[in-house]
């Protein structure tokens, strides 16, 4: 065996480092996001809307959509497959089925006023590249209620950047004024 290297000098931390030293406290982290701050941040991120491009056969407009996920089952994660409301991106992009609710506001189409609808639906996420971190595909269906009726929609999309950013297209053949909706799908948690 080769000769061992000499042990380091005595345990005499430099004055500089010793001055920086803070009294350790068990296994606590160096920084901590408090539960209150996390809750506030989560609520804030749920309020970030996804912008919409709303099209009918003869006009186009805009709008925004919010989404909340009350329940998600991830078949891609190694542990804790069932999540509620607070959804880590990996639980979604590694492969999952989610139930979502989604208020939606459309506006700006020439000749049309603004209008709200409410959606509830299910969406399947399938990882495509990099366990879904780089690219995830989604398929979904939803049921909507509008002031002038209700009906069903289908949806498909692609998502990138840990599924935080996506493009989805929702088709609702019987929904007057917004048969096709393109969405820049923004999700954090």
């Amino acid at each position, binding site marked *: *065996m*080769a000769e*061992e*290297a*000499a*042990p*380091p*000098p*005595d*345990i*005499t*931390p*430099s004055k*500089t*480092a*010793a001055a*920086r*030293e803070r*009294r*350790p406290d068990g*296994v*606590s*982290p*160096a*920084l*901590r*996001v*408090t*539960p209150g*701050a*996390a809750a506030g*941040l*989560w609520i804030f*991120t749920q309020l970030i809307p996804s912008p919409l491009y709303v099209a009918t056969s003869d006009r186009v407009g805009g709008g925004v959509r919010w989404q909340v996920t009350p329940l998600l089952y991830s078949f*891609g*994660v*190694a*542990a*804790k497959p069932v999540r509620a409301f607070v959804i*880590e*991106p*990996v*639980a979604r992009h*590694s492969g999952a089925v989610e139930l979502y609710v989604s208020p939606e506001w459309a506006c700006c189409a020439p000749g049309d006023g603004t209008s709200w609808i409410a959606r509830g639906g299910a969406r399947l996420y399938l*990882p495509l590249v*990099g*366990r*879904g*971190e*780089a690219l995830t595909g989604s398929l979904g269906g939803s049921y909507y209620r509008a002031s002038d009726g209700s009906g069903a929609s289908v949806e498909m999309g692609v998502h990138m*950047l*840990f599924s935080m950013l996506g493009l989805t297209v929702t088709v609702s053949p019987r929904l007057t004024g917004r048969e096709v909706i393109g969405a820049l799908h923004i999700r*954090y*948690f």
Partner: protein
Amino acid sequence: MVHARLFLPLVFALSGCGFIGRVLQRSFAVPPEPARIERKIRDPRRADARLSVLWIGHATALVQLDDVFVLTDPVFTRNVGQLSPRLVEPGLDAADLPPLAAVVVSHMHFDHLSFDSLSMIEDKTPIVLLPPGAKASVPRYAFEIRELDRWESYDAGGVKVTAVPVRHVGGRWGIDQAWNIRAFTGYVFQYHGLSVYFGGDTAFDRERFEATRAFFPDLSLAILPICPTEPRDFMRRTHMDSLEALDAFSLLGARRMMPMHYDTFINSDDRPGDCPRLLREHMRERGFSDDQVAILAIGEQRVLIAK
């Protein structure tokens, strides 16, 4: 990408996260191709070694203890977090890894827990060890995934891996630090009388280093981070600088130290070369020799104890 170069730094600057904006701006300025490594090692098995280390880059190191191998924080991808590009190619291709006894992951940050990299080594290891709470943030793989709490050990085939306390943060996405409050750790690997400390990411913490020394009084090697350091007021709570790393080396009482976690990705205001330069200066001031502190180049393999 042009829009991202202009837009993302501006967004972070306006939101008060100027540091993140600066890091992104520097990341976008990095050449698209990482620097090549001349004469890259293809077979890292060293018949002449009892203890050797190959620095693959950042916190990724292949440790050989006699006839077994342990891999730390595997990252082989071209970037981390999809935004921070690699400056130097990995010092060993994932395909050239030998069969591993275990893989350890110190915490969940993108530069330490890389899903794509774990995919690349899926057939190389029977197990990946994680800190408590991290398993729920990892996709399924073919290998076993096991969490180790502080002082818990995994023992198989004579290789013993023990989780040891360090001072860092859990979580991967920011907000999840609130509940991943234990998801960070260091490790000690033991085999045939050899013992190697891997610090992962850690701030300086005398009590935790001394506690580790009390459990492992005869460490053959301490692999310690020396970067990132700037902006120091922000970094010192979670990362050691090179001077503190030397102090940690002394407190751990290891026979040798290998610095890591520098000059591979852009994750701070540090310039490439700053951290090892400061380490060399502090080594001179403190009287550490090159035998005691083995500063490896990315892709370099060093036999620390020969047969």
